């Protein structure tokens, strides 16, 4: 069984199908991209994996564990983290605290330790702070460490959100359009970060992205969604050569997608 295994997932909203019999897999250590036109169901697919939506049928497993059997908040412990298409930071918390919350599921001291700020809580805070500082260094966020996340520029907020998902040190990270709205330089930085997250931090990546240049460059595998169905699945070269894909999506007026 693959690391992330999505089988025959169907999701409907009041009779309208957003996903129909979707199946694909992510092998451990891979970067897999999920692409498709607007409204194809990419975000819906991520929501099913992370627990925001509950599919009508089908199964999703991560590392052999049935994801659909546990509530959304408990999936973090099974090794899942994600970012959102629209920025979803804790605006009132500092960058540092946003990343510390990212490690919430990794901390296990209880209420009493919190209230009394006992040795256990102190030591845990200290140790987790060290890991968070690594993330801050990696993403170049140190100038913003103590600033409220909601007041930062857009590009930085995107990075903080990536940092929060990274701080969880999960096995699989879901990224929903991390490059949306970024300029060329920021996009290249972000691509670099994703590659490093994959190689140095050892996290598998499921990436939703519209920028075909980036997708074809960094992906080990590409899954194409169209109207809630899987149109093609394979290496970037295979997908680009696929006649259905070219006709439905990459070809025609959308040909610009292929280049940058």
């Amino acid at each position: 069984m693959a690391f992330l295994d999505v089988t025959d997932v169907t999701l409907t909203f009041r009779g309208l199908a957003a996903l129909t019999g979707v199946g694909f897999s992510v092998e451990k250590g891979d970067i897999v991209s999920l692409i498709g036109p607007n409204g194809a169901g990419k975000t819906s697919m991520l929501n099913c994996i992370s627990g925001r939506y509950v599919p009508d049928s089908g199964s999703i497993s991560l590392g052999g564990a049935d994801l659909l059997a546990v509530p959304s908040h408990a999936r973090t412990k099974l090794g899942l983290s994600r970012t959102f298409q629209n920025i979803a930071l804790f605006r009132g918390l500092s960058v540092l605290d946003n990343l510390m919350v990212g490690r919430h599921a990794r901390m296990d001291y209880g209420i009493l330790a919190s209230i009394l700020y006992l040795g256990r809580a102190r030591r845990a805070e200290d140790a987790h702070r060290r890991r968070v500082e690594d993330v801050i260094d990696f993403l170049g966020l140190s100038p913003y460490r103590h600033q409220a996340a909601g007041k930062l520029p857009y590009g930085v907020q995107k990075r903080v959100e990536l940092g929060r998902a990274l701080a969880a040190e999960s096995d699989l990270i879901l990224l929903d359009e991390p490059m949306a709205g970024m300029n060329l330089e920021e996009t290249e930085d972000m691509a670099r970060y994703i590659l490093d997250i994959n190689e140095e931090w050892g996290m598998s990546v499921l990436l939703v992205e519209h920028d075909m240049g980036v997708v074809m460059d960094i992906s080990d595998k590409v899954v194409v969604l169209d109207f809630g169905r899987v149109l093609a699945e394979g290496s970037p070269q295979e997908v680009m050569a696929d006649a259905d894909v070219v006709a439905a999506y990459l070809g025609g007026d959308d040909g610009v997608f292929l280049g940058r």
Partner: protein
Amino acid sequence: MHGQCGLFFRTYAGEARIFPSRFLMVSMGLFGTALCLAPLAMNNYLVSILCLINIAVIGAVSLNLLTGFCGQISLGHGAFFGVGAYAAAYLASLGLPFLAVLPAAGLVTAAVGMFFGLPSLRLKGIYLAIATLAAQLILEYVFLHWDAVTGGSSGMAVDPPQVFGFAFDSDVKMFYLTLAVACVCVLIVCNVMRTRLGRAFVAIRDHHLSAEIVGVDLFAYKLRAFGISSFLAGVGGALWAFYTMYITPEQFGIGLSVSYLAMIIIGGLGSVLGGVFGAVFITILPEFLNFLAHHAGAFFTDISGALLAMKEGVFGLVLVLFLIFEPEGLANRWRLVKAYWKLYPFAH
């Protein structure tokens, strides 16, 4: 010789301290000493105001934990406070010692608060406000009609607290007791807010979907917020019962809930210091207006009565003006003033 410019931390733990600089620690020490010595130079009336402030601080800081930090608005805090007062009065009447009554009253209130916090799983914002308003009304009804425990409309008498044979039977003694308990309660909230529990609360307030994604069980944590907040409110209510020595249902009406909300809004939502400032401000304001009316009366004999009558209106007016001109609360103003003096005389 080189002086330090700004604050440097050599350890992460140093940064997490409540008073991160030596200057702050020294000034807080001086303030604490002055506060402890103050009653010696004050008449009973002024000391009684200090006692009320100490108790109000507990109520406001605990509500700020729930509403300011966790974003769960509550219009029932006054009634939760009352649950603590009645629980304390009842347990004390059974002969339980004060040191056991105080936490027990907190636990009873925590249970009640968590029960009435259950709707927060489904309800947000104004809808939760209405649900907690219902809690307020239900609890008021219980205070009034559960005669066997609460004494109904005639209320309950409470003896002054005793700790190891020492009776806190004067305002000055009660001042030290309430101050100590208030400090512990504020410390608890500070601790909660610098650990994972407090961060999860703010996460729920700021973006509940993201909170869930990072692994916060929304329901469990909202209940925790209700539990801890009501526990502290219960402790505050217990102190109130011991201090006033006579409790009746109307002391814990919707007016009390609203004044706690006023305290945290004026002091600063989501700031521990804000809760303290708000409690001080809202407790002192009516006394100050009394004082004004009284002294104005010495100069303009006929005005005094009118001023007294206008007191309530002036109280409301001051609140509204505050909301307009200081919407971020007193704690924020305090921060700005501090920042200004740090750079003085180089500020632009």
